[in-house]
């Protein structure tokens, strides 16, 4: 079975209107640029988008947002994305804001066949409205549910032809769990290598989770805030 596809265009085959799609990344770190860029050129709309953030105004998922391709956003942080905040406050977009750890765990649970679990985060806040609550170890917890998606789109540092992935530094973030939670998982990688090239002891995402993989091109890897120490 061949998992390798030529490029982002081939990778997104089958994605159509109103699908639920997960996108890896935290801020602009570790986002699948190639797939996002190609989706922005399509007329695909009504996306239910699961991603910790929604890019910035003109980059990353911000592009799909600006194109009004996203119907609903499931995220933990709006942050400094002014278009996202505008669409949210005006009601143009449906938004489900979820505590970041709960979001991460819901995605892991979805991929791991765990339909529901209890967490303390959000108890007593508006996040808990309508949710079952229960006391464990003297502390209130709320019931949260696993999340899956029609497609999960992740970005890795290196990948092999079997779909095994490794991430660099903090670029793992949501990618590693999302890879497990897509009915179809698309991985774009900076470097695609033959099976057997990566040390099997240090695979972050085992290949079983990945259905399509390709080597991305022209990574911009934009940085939101360049903070530096001045050399003495």
């Amino acid at each position, binding site marked *: 079975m061949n998992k390798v596809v030529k490029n982002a265009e081939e990778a997104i085959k089958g994605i159509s209107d109103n699908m639920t799609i997960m996108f890896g990344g*935290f*801020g*602009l*770190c*570790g986002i699948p640029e190639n797939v996002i860029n190609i989706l922005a050129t399509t007329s695909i709309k009504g996306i239910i988008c699961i991603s*910790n953030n929604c890019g910035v105004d003109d980059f990353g998922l911000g592009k799909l947002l600006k194109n009004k391709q996203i119907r609903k956003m499931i*995220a*933990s*942080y*709006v*942050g400094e994305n002014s278009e996202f*905040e505008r669409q*949210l*406050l005006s009601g143009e977009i449906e938004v489900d*804001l979820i*505590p*970041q*750890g*709960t*979001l*991460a*765990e819901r*995605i*892991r649970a979805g991929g791991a066949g765990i339909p529901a679990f209890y*967490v*303390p*985060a*959000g*108890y*007593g*806040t*508006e*996040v808990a409205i309508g949710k079952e609550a229960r006391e464990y170890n003297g502390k209130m917890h709320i019931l949260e549910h696993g999340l899956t998606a029609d497609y999960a789109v992740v970005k890795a*540092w290196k990948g092999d032809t079997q779909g095994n992935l490794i*991430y*660099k*530094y*903090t*670029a*793992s*973030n*949501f*990618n*590693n*769990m999302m890879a497990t939670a897509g009915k179809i998982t698309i991985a774009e990688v900076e470097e695609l290598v033959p099976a057997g090239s990566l040390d099997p002891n240090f695979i*972050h995402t085992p290949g079983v989770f990945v259905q399509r993989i390709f080597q991305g091109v022209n990574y911009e*890897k*934009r*940085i*939101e*805030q*360049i*903070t*530096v*120490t*001045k*050399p003495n």
Partner: protein
Amino acid sequence: MALDKNQIAKRIAQELKDGYYVNLGIGIPTLVANYVPEGIEVTLQSENGLLGIGPFPHPDKVDADLINAGKQTVTYVDGASFFDSATSFGMIRGGHIDLTILGAFEVSEEGDIASWKVPGKLVKGMGGAMDLVAAAKNIIVAMQHTNKGASKILKQCTLPLTGVKCVKKVVTDLAVLDITPQGFKLIERAPGVTVQEIIAATEGKLIVEGDIPEMNI
């Protein structure tokens, strides 16, 4: 005189203990890293997947794949590790982080905190703050005591909550307050700030017992 941001960070740094694993929120908390006392080793956790944050990189070492939870470029120290967000919040939720320092819009005398939303006006999102405040063993809030004259140290929060009954200590530009079952307890005051000024700036129940020392900044 009221403390500036760096002085608040410096005061909070006095709460650090050797061997602590600490999560620093965005803003003033991030500055705490600059004032870790001599002879004390703390490990900084960033919820986007790094244990062992180092200083900002030299300009030629900036890497888009190496950021903190505030999306700032950082470095890592010897003995650091990188991991995914589920592992990161497992660490937090499981009580493996000793101390969380974060900012807030408001804090209540029961230890409630509001920090993520001003209805109709501003939605930043809760990010990892709800997970952190629900799970950390010890939570210190760094914040301004008032906003345009209005107290942010309240009986009850007026804004949507981030967490309930979770904050243990508040360090503001005016004072250090412990949160006790009886309400805010005044521990220290900023140099030159009087107890009267702090009382005036505090809406929540404030306990003042005996002489209140000045902070040692």
